[in-house]
């Protein structure tokens, strides 16, 4: 057997309160695509950040071509030919593509012309269609990712680490990325692909390292395994998929939310929302698919009241709520799980109980003459902790100290109680592990059964197909059409997500 390109031997990393990595050992061969599979918090990113020099290992060592190497900062890693593309890109938006790529790698006077031509050549070599003099801020995320890759190639990276690279891409863009990965590794280079998506792993990887709770729980060749086995290794148990029935009332149910001609447009700018119309019936899950940043968040916020539409109407149970404030709409029974729970959903330094009353600090639900009814609040929070299986020491635990999945459950518990009529979920399972996703899906389906109307925004197609009764695809602030979920498939939806309109088989939307 050949000497592995890189070898990680017994690496451990401790953070305060968590063991991020314990005794991790595996190797990366030349010309290999290695998938690093695991749930959030399994330690995938941490071990790769150690290899890239962003973190220091507390124990263990790293070998390159059989010799031990010390990697203390990304610069060391780059010298050894390691490049890492972070989940959040590290590009300077105000600079051009060329400037971004040469950043940190040129000294003294910059020969712009030469750099420029180098970039063009480089992009052509790999068949990347990247405008090298465009500003990064003007590029789509998919192209920005290519810029990141070019940056790595410019440094002659021989090991490319990609952290959840497909999270921001359309299915078609993902396809292009996979092709690049194949052609890149054919030249003898290696790729580490960090992901929690089983499908991708089976598609692209030669070998799979499965991680769970900071340890390696499996090291398998793709040919020798299947999705079921991987999922078991990843979670440690079998998952029971929640069952979806045909819905309590189907087409005859009462319309709960009605949105007509909703538009948000600032003067001189492209509209954020363009003439959106749809309705949601009681007991229906209405899905919105699309690459994130195409107006989904604006749509949610227009319905919850924090963004004012420039045209159009929103009504709830026949009552026009377009002019109501956020607080009044909460009072009408609209619950909202925002996409960014850190920014919009929770107050991290506060306790779980305090977060439970965030939406209803006015009025008498939690208060007596302005004084907080701590007893009632704690009792309700304790009940939510039990009902939703939130892993928290108690109502007085700091919300910021919980794991992402448990934080999301706290928000969901609150919004289910607030949203007695309508529940708006913007990517409710983003970044969560399979166990938590399963939990959340079960809750949402139960709420559907109870007759609530649910608006589900998601970038995960599997989630959209699994949960929704009807699906709208959003692109640049417009709906590309509304479909029954059985009318669509991955390919069709992918084209719509990329903005290719097709013959609309008008359905569902009377």
């Amino acid at each position, binding site marked *: 057997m050949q000497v592995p390109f890189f070898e990680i031997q017994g690496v451990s990393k*401790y953070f305060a309160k968590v063991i991020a990595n314990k005794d991790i050992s595996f190797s990366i061969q030349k010309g290999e695509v290695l998938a690093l599979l695991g749930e959030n918090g399994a330690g995938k990113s941490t071990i790769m950040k150690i290899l890239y020099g962003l973190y220091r290992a507390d124990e263990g060592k790293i070998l390159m071509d059989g010799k031990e190497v010390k990697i203390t900062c990304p610069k060391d890693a780059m010298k050894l030919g390691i490049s890492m593309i972070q989940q959040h890109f590290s590009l300077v938006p105000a600079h051009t593509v060329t400037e971004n790529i040469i950043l940190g790698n040129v000294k003294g006077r910059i020969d712009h012309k030469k750099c420029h031509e180098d970039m063009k050549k480089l992009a052509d070599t790999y068949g990347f269609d990247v405008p090298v003099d465009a500003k990064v801020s003007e590029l789509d995320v998919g192209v920005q990712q290519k810029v990141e890759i070019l940056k790595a190639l410019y440094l002659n990276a021989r090991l490319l680490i990609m952290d959840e690279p497909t999270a921001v891409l359309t299915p078609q863009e993902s396809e292009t990325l996979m092709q690049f990965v194949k052609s890149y590794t054919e030249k003898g280079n290696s790729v580490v692909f960090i992901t929690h998506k089983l499908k991708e792993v089976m598609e692209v990887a030669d070998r799979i390292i499965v991680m769970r709770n900071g340890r390696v729980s499996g090291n398998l060749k793709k040919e020798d395994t299947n999705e079921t086995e991987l999922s078991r290794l990843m979670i440690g148990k079998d998952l029971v998929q929640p069952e979806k029935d045909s819905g309590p009332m189907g087409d005859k149910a009462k319309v709960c939310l009605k949105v007509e001609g909703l538009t948000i447009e600032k003067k001189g700018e492209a509209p954020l929302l363009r003439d959106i119309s749809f309705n949601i019936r009681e007991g229906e899950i209405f899905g919105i698919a699309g690459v994130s940043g195409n107006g989904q968040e604006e749509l949610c916020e227009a319905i919850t009241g924090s963004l004012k539409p420039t045209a159009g109407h929103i009504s709830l149970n026949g009552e026009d709520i377009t002019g109501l404030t*956020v607080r009044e709409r909460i009072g009408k029974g609209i619950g909202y799980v925002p996409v960014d729970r850190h920014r919009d*959903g929770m*107050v991290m330094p506060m306790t779980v109980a305090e977060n439970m009353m*965030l939406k209803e*600090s006015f009025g008498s639900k939690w208060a007596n003459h302005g*004084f*907080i009814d701590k007893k009632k609040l704690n009792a309700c929070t304790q009940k939510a902790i039990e009902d939703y299986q939130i892993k928290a020491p108690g109502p007085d635990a700091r919300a910021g100290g919980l794991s992402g999945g448990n934080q999301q459950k706290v928000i969901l518990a609150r919004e289910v109680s607030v949203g007695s009529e309508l529940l708006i979920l913007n990517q409710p399972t983003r970044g969560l592990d399979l166990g938590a996703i399963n939990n959340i899906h079960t809750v949402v389906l139960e709420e559907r059964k109870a007759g609530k109307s649910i608006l589900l925004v998601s970038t995960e197609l599997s989630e959209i197909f699994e949960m929704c009764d009807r699906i709208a695809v959003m692109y640049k602030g417009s709906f590309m059409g509304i479909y029954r979920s059985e009318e669509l498939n991955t390919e069709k939806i992918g084209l719509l997500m990329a903005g290719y309109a097709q013959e609309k088989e008008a359905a569902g939307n009377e």
Partner: protein
Amino acid sequence: MNDKDKLKDLIITNFLAIAAGLILSGLMLMLLHINPFTVFGDALHTMFTDKYTMGDVLLKATPLIFTALAFAFTFKANLFNIGAQGQFYMGAIVAIAASLKMDGVVPTPVLLLIVVVLTFVAGGLIGALIGFLKARYNANEFLVSMMSTYVVQALMNYLLRTFLLETKGEYPQTDAISREAWIPTLIPGTRLHWGFVLAVLVAVGVWILLYKTTLGYRIRAVGSNASASEKSGIKSKKVFVIAFFISGALAGMAGFTEINGVQHMLIQDFNTSIGSSGLGIAILANANPIGIIFASILFGALGVIGNLMGRMPGLNIPSSIVDLMQGFVMIFVIVSYFLRAWMANRREKRRLQKVVEK
């Protein structure tokens, strides 16, 4: 790590920080060829045995509690009111003007009650103005509040030369108010007045307001995460104005206790450092209202010790030793804050490593 451990850590590190501050101050004294042990010993001895001096410690702590609360209150809303000095001046102006007007006209309790309300509102309005500028025009509250102090100070100086000028017309200061308008003495034989009790009650009140009421809840929520609060129907701009009003009002009340309780008149360059000291105390107490009471007493004590040392015959200890001691203590307390976080982090890591190895 539970809360008990944290409290223990807090008390130990703060105690060490104070000790370190005093030791460093002692070293400074040694540079002046003064034996710090005898000097500190004497000063402490006097402080703890002399009723009058002890009373002065609490007397000095009183306005500091108010200005520290003022800073802490907006700090909880993630806002910075560093204009407590100006709000205190505004309170002082209103206190002296109202007291002079009503002196001998209305009975003492009524007068004091009216004055305390007026100072509260006066300081509060200055605060609310800052909050309004922040909310309406997105002005930087840090700068606006800082500059507001100079504006109020200029106003005070103007008034001291015109409408509030003493009858003699000699110095830029007001007439003294009569005993009728004084805050009654708390302990006979000392200068300590009921204003100290008021300060402690207000601190407890602020604590209740922040942690037990929905208004306080909203202020803290907006402070920690304005975006999430907005999405939850809380108008963060309104909260800014309210928080700044209360903050300014608290600082304004220091004007009441200082005028009616201690100075009994308004003079130029009156108590120039209680705003900045209050800021330091609030940080020292981690913006906790109850902690502020103790931190203020500590600062009062340091001030008194420094004064005692300055007055020691034949030693010529510069009076700036007060600032030096307070500064050193403050630095160490701030360092201890980071030390605590680092220690807690390391302990957790160790514990974890042990658990794994078992």
